[in-house]
């Protein structure tokens, strides 16, 4: 029986390809109308998880239900209830916009009398009204992406899976695309989306951080940012960066230090106390300090903090 509250439930899901563990015991659940983000670097196992949820790959072990249906046992019932946009743009480039839409209307068995209305809606939603007769291969990336989304939701599925939907799309189109996603979530659609853009992850209601097949954290973006950084986060502008970060990593008042762009992010117990200590510590070691200030952690900080002990087990832990 489909569960009204949780539209996607994953329990201890594992996928192995030979010796390689692509997805390593992931458990989570996504609620109806939620925008659930999968954040992680390329190759972390995000696409593999999504493909298992769409019934395209068989899980090695564990269990997952989508709209109440088991993905391994009832993949066809799952497919009735989902829309899927794969990582690679996968509409037919040699067909017209309208031909692609008609194809998917047919594939999803949209009733004959509703086809025109649904296609009109999809065209409007993807801002492609009037472009029906263009060959898809000639469209710019952002348009293709919106069309792909339009095709995937023609049948009004309660759950949609979007695998890196905005990769290779310009920032403005990306923004438009996310407006669409929010609109759909507002209508009660559960949206499962993978991304490796940190700023995109901020748009999600909840996030799972995926790293090397494992889920390292789960929560709202603000929860993740708060909980992952234990203490205060300081931005340090100084030169040279290399020796500075090395010496700070062993400094007594510093819990963690990492290079962020052209500055350092360091974690301390308490900002007020630590700022003069850090300045002194660095000046003693011949590092010129331009600026030190207290900042709010970003998702990237959270991600670095959460994955640092897996990435390099020797580095200092933040908690």
């Amino acid at each position: 029986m489909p569960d009204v509250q949780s539209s996607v439930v994953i329990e201890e899901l594992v996928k192995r390809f030979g010796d390689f563990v692509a997805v390593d015991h992931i458990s989570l659940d996504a609620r109806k109308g939620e925008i659930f983000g999968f954040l992680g670097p390329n190759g972390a196992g995000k696409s593999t998880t999504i493909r298992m949820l769409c019934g395209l790959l068989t899980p090695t072990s564990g269990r997952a239900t989508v709209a109440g249906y088991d993905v391994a046992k009832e993949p066809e019932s799952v497919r009735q209830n989902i829309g899927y946009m794969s990582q690679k743009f996968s509409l037919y480039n040699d067909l017209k916009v309208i031909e692609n839409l008609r194809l998917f209307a047919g594939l999803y068995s949209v009733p004959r009398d509703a086809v025109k209305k649904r296609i009109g809606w999809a065209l409007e939603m993807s801002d492609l009204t009037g472009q029906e007769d263009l060959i898809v291969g000639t469209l710019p990336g952002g348009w293709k992406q919106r069309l792909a989304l339009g095709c995937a939701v023609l049948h009004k599925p309660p759950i949609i899976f979007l695998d890196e939907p905005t990769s290779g799309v310009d920032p403005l189109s990306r923004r438009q695309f996310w407006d669409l996603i929010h609109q759909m979530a507002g209508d009660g659609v559960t949206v499962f989306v993978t991304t490796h853009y940190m700023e995109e992850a901020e748009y999600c209601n909840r996030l799972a951080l995926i790293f090397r097949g494992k889920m390292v954290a789960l929560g709202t973006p603000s929860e993740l940012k708060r909980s992952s950084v234990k203490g205060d986060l300081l931005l340090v502008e100084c030169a040279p960066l290399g020796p500075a970060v090395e010496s700070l990593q062993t400094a007594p008042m510093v819990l963690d230090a990492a290079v962020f762009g052209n500055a350092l992010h360091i974690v301390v117990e308490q900002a007020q106390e630590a700022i003069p200590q850090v300045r002194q510590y660095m000046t003693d070691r011949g590092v010129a300090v331009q600026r030190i200030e207290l900042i709010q952690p970003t998702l990237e900080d959270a991600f670095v903090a959460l994955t640092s002990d897996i990435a390099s087990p020797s580095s200092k832990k933040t908690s």
Partner: protein
Amino acid sequence: MSFIRFYAIAKKEIVQVLRDTRSLIIVLIMPVILVLLFGYGVSLDLKHLPVYVYDQDGTQQSQDLLKHFQASEYFDVVRVVDNYRELTLALDSGEAKMGLVIPWDFARRLANGRPAEIQALMDGTDDNTANVLIGYTQAVVERYSLQVQLRWLQGQGQTVQPSQISVENRTWYNEELESSAFIVPGVLALVMSVIGAFLTSLTIAREWERGTMEQLISTPATPLEIMLGKLVPYFVIGILDVIVCALFAVYWFKVPLRGSSLTLLLSSAMFLVVVLAMGFFISVIAKNQLAASQLALLTTFLPAFLLSGFLYAIEQMPKALQLFTYILPARYYVSILKKIFLKGSPTALLYVDLVPLTIIAVVLGVLATNSFRKRLP
């Protein structure tokens, strides 16, 4: 099985074929080119073979013999030379298929009632032609030899009533022994192989390569709907090509169509099912275009070309190869084609070929349907 989903896929496939130049060429132009190529280009007729003659004797008798060769439609005495070197050169260069040498004592030996010999040098690079030449040469020489004997006996004052046995030839089915009549019907098997196996496996592999197949299998469309949606358009195209090729054979190459056109269409449909199933099966194994096209050519086109009896008689193949041809669908189809076009065999006599063809079609069809999984590799 949902008709809406099947129809959506089939319609998309047709639009894609019509929009893709490469597919259009294979669908529209290739069949006509194959028919023309084999109708004109491949001639197994051996007539007017060029012969060089080195007549050392140069007598009335030797000229007489040469006239017999000249009179035969199988030989053309293109040149008379006076040394071995030129003869050898002509054979080397391929200007002559045979060199005839009449020895200097030819007439004298005959006059004395002694056996005479002539030498025939064959170009053996084409063993078939050489064999045929030997046969024709012997026939000409034997006939001449008989005349010489009769004349000699008459010269001895004996009245001889020559009693000869002659063979009255009547070639059935292909009265003129035109090789185009023998070959052109079989071209249908080649065309079907290309459309059915090559083109379809290519288009399915292309969907895997481009990622559209991933999108397709994420929808509720069933494997059967996807398979039929992909294959039915090519089935229709195949049938249209059968009609085009048959019309070409009959009206252009004057190949008789003596059997029933309906049986021709039905058996072509059966063979199409076979090659389409193979094409689909191949695309399940090989998910990229290069591998799929090579597998398709290797498993359908080449056997249809070499082992089906299309060009080379199966009875003349090594025993092991002959046995192997029994599992080749093209063997049965080519046999049916020749029977329908040339013999006009009633459908009842086609069962020996139709039954195995149907069995293969059913087996492959079931295999293909069950091999497709809506899973990523």
